[in-house]
């Protein structure tokens, strides 16, 4: 069970923050759930099969596959994270979404932190970190208030260095 949110730590001449989405159930728990569901669904389908009504089975099988795929997609989210490391003169942002990792590096003293409100009510605020016209949006798993707090924290860390 992953609580999600920001966890940060300060070390000598550096700072590390990890942002994770919240996942309330372990992958093992979700697999157990899929197995339970499959047993119930297939038992019903096999009972009808024994009566000659075989067409329930393909639909039950298809549905089981969709449930498994949906669970897998949700489990995969548990491994998503965003990591920001300030170490010496370097700022490194590593973003892992759906198993794909992207790393961006910036020079610490040129790095800017921008907190931009959404252009409309429907758009979330954006937290941008970068320099020289190259910015990375981070903190999609944070609330607007937490984005503001996180932006202030990072700005302080960068200035202190």
């Amino acid at each position: 069970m992953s609580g999600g949110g920001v966890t940060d730590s300060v070390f000598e001449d550096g700072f590390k923050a990890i942002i994770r989405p919240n996942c309330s159930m372990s992958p093992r728990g979700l697999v157990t759930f899929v197995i339970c569901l499959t047993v119930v669904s297939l038992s019903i389908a096999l009972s009808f099969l024994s009566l000659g009504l075989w067409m329930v089975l393909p639909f039950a099988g298809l549905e089981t596959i969709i449930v498994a795929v949906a669970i897998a997609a949700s489990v995969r989210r548990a491994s998503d994270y965003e990591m920001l490391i300030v170490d010496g003169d370097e700022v490194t942002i590593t973003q892992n979404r759906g198993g794909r990792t992207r790393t961006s590096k910036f020079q610490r003293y040129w790095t800017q932190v921008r907190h931009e409100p959404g252009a409309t009510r429907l758009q979330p605020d954006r937290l941008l970190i970068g320099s020289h016209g190259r910015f990375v949006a981070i903190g999609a798993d944070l609330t607007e208030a937490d984005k503001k707090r996180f932006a202030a924290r990072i700005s302080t860390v960068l200035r202190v260095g």
Partner: protein
Amino acid sequence: MATAEAAHHEEHHHPSGIMRWITTTNHKDIGTLYLSFSLMMFMVGGAMALVIRAELFQPGLQIVDPHFFNQMTTMHALVMIFGAIMPGFVGFANWMIPMMIGAPDMALPRLNNWSFWILPFAFTMLLGSLFAPGGGPASGWTLYAPLSIQGGMSVDMTILAVHMMGISSVLGAINIVVTVFNMRAPGMTLMKMPLFVWTWLITAYLLIAVMPVLAGAVTMLLTDRHFGTAFFDPAGGGDPVMFQHIFWFFGHPEVYVMILPAFGIISEIIPTFARKPLFGYASMVLAVAGIAFLSFIVWAHHMFTVGMPLIGELFFMYATMLIAVPTGVKVFNWVATMWRGSMTFETPMLFAISVVVLFTIGGLSGLMLAITPADFQYHDTYFVVAHFHYVLFSGAAMAMMGGAYYWLPKWTGHMYDEKLGKLHFWLTAIFFNITFFPQHFLGLAGMPRRIPDYALQFTEFNVMSSIGAFGLGFSQLLLVYVVVKCVRGGEKASAEVWDNPKGLEWTVPSPAPYHTFETPPQVR
């Protein structure tokens, strides 16, 4: 691992106008879409009910021919069940479940969008079948074989529409289950979840378990019609009674799909206006689970008259009567929650109390129908029509109305017009009883259901019922007016809206921000 070379200062293009609603993956938008669709279908299905009641106002054939009358009874049920009640509850689930468990959105937002947008196509197909050669489906919503095997092209359209509705329901159910399991805020253990979330979790299980059965049943109907199979066609050695078994194996859990979320809604409303915590939370959860389990072993009470063995009749009779136990626990707990509470009677509470009273009447008439020898008398009479309308209208639909008034300020940021809300409640409750209570007497006196004409001795009660139906139908325009008025403006609602309500949804401002709980709140 790739290094970001280019600027990621990407713009988030959020479409506006109609494209916003077509492409949205936001749970609140999709909840609004479901609820609007449900209200629209409620009006369409209601108009069909008025055609039925207009014809039954007097004995004899006055307004429609018998075949069209049968199309109306069939379509009224399909539209109300699959178009109004089920999408309505999914709308509530979309809006409320993420906020109640402290999640930023549903677990699978794109799937959520797709689940909704299948529905308009399904209902275009279903309603379009009325214009097919030979008219719409006329075999009743149960599509019993062999009548449905003999129907025209409209039956094929209905089967395809039922498949689409089934896909929509299953995808919605999968999304709800995954969301509840994987996206609860830290500290939000299963036994801390609001009862509405529990009822929907169990409802989603039921849907996932029984929807393949419906899909298989209607597909076998289709192959009997067009591909030379004989699953249910007696002309080829098939067994039409087997269709009834397979249909009701889906159909009875489906009844609970339509009522369990209603239980959840009133379990949220009553504690707020009684200003007491819900009495017997754990027993409420167990009762819902018990009802769901029993729903799988009672299906044949819908078909006592087909001639099943005595042991089968006894089993299904006792199993059905057993459902009264967990249901009784729930009714007791709602009453116990109100007992010595500091009660006030705002519109949502009026609806919730009426659900407790009127649903109990429906439950008791259900117990009468569960008694096999008595059912031989009541089967396919207006007593059954009265029974299931007390369960589905005054249970499911009125719970949804109460829920809409309860959460409308949270959704829109405005208070609804309390005077008009109360007027809507009283008109609905009074006209509902004028419409459906006399139908008990009609059924007990032997008036069959699904007929456009009747014997003269049934006239008075039918006149009463039809007058009530028109009053009930037109009263619902008031609901539309109140909702539209509330959406457009009104007194500003506070975050809590009511007097110290419990639940995470009341911790966010009104209207609820477009993006809530991107970081989960801590639940203690």
